[in-house]
C-alpha cells in the first residue's frame, strides 16, 4: 500500500536522480538549485528512496538551531559501507547544509548536528554507498521563525 506522501517522496527522489524535475509537475517540484546540488553529489546517478532515516522535527519554532540527525542502514564492513551523507534543502539561500564522510571504522552510519532552516521546506539526506548507489530520505518541515533572512536582528 502506497500513501500519497510515500508516492510524492519517491517521485521527487526519482526526479532528482535523473534530473527530470520539469517533466514531473507534482506538488513538490523542488527548485533548480537543489536539483543542481543533488546532481553535483550524485553525478547523475539515480537516487532511490529508503535505507536512510532523516530525523528532523516536523514543526520548528526557531529555524536557527534545528536538531538534525541521519542514520543509514548499513553493516559498515570494509566491503559494504556508507562513504558519505549529504544534507540539502530546498529553500535555504544555499541548498547545501553539510556533507559528512564516513568509512568502515565508523561502526555505525549516523551523525547528529544542528542546522539553520530559512523557510518551510523539504530537507533531503542522500547517502552514498561504497558500491556507488545512492539512497535518500526527505522530511517536510514547517518553520515559523526562519533563520538567515530575519531583518532587524542586529
Amino acid at each position, binding site marked *: 500500500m502506497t500513501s500519497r506522501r510515500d508516492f510524492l517522496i519517491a517521485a521527487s527522489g526519482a526526479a532528482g536522480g535523473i534530473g527530470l524535475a520539469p517533466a514531473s509537475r507534482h506538488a513538490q517540484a523542488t527548485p533548480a538549485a537543489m536539483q543542481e546540488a543533488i546532481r553535483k553529489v550524485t553525478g547523475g546517478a539515480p537516487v532511490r528512496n529508503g535505507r536512510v532515516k532523516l530525523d528532523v522535527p516536523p514543526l520548528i519554532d526557531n529555524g536557527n538551531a*534545528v536538531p538534525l540527525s541521519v542514520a543509514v542502514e548499513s553493516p559498515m564492513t570494509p566491503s559494504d559501507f556508507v562513504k558519505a551523507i549529504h544534507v540539502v534543502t530546498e529553500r535555504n539561500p*544555499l541548498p547545501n*547544509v*553539510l556533507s559528512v564522510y564516513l568509512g568502515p571504522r565508523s561502526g*555505525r552510519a549516523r*551523525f547528529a548536528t544542528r542546522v*539553520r532552516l530559512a523557510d518551510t521546506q523539504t530537507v533531503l539526506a542522500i547517502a552514498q554507498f561504497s558500491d556507488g548507489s545512492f539512497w535518500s530520505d526527505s522530511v517536510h518541515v514547517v518553520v515559523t521563525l526562519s533563520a538567515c533572512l530575519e531583518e*532587524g536582528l542586529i
Partner: protein
Amino acid sequence: MARAVVNVPAKVKRGEIIEVKTLIQHVMETGFRRTQLGEVIPRDIIRQFVCTYNGAEIFRAELHPAVSANPLLAFSTVATESGTIAFTWTGDKGFSVTESAKITVV
C-alpha cells in the same frame, strides 16, 4: 580563542562502537545578513572538520552556512586501540582549532 568541547568515553572495550560528541564556539556568520546600514556582513564560518584516530582519518565534515552557530557534531567510531582521538576545525579568516582526547581500550 574559540572554546571546543569534546566528549569521548575514557575507557572502553575493544571493538565497541563509541559515540563521539564535539561542540565548538563559533558565530557561523552566514554572509547573507546585513547591518542596519545595509552592508552585508562578510561570511565567517567553519568550512571543515576532521577527526583522526591515532593519525588515521575516521570522520570528516564539510560545513556550509546552513550549519548553526556553535556547531555540534556527534558521530560514532569503533574503538580499535588505545591512543589519541584528535579533532581539527578550519574555516574562514584563518580559523583553526585543534583539540584531542585520550582513549583507553581494554
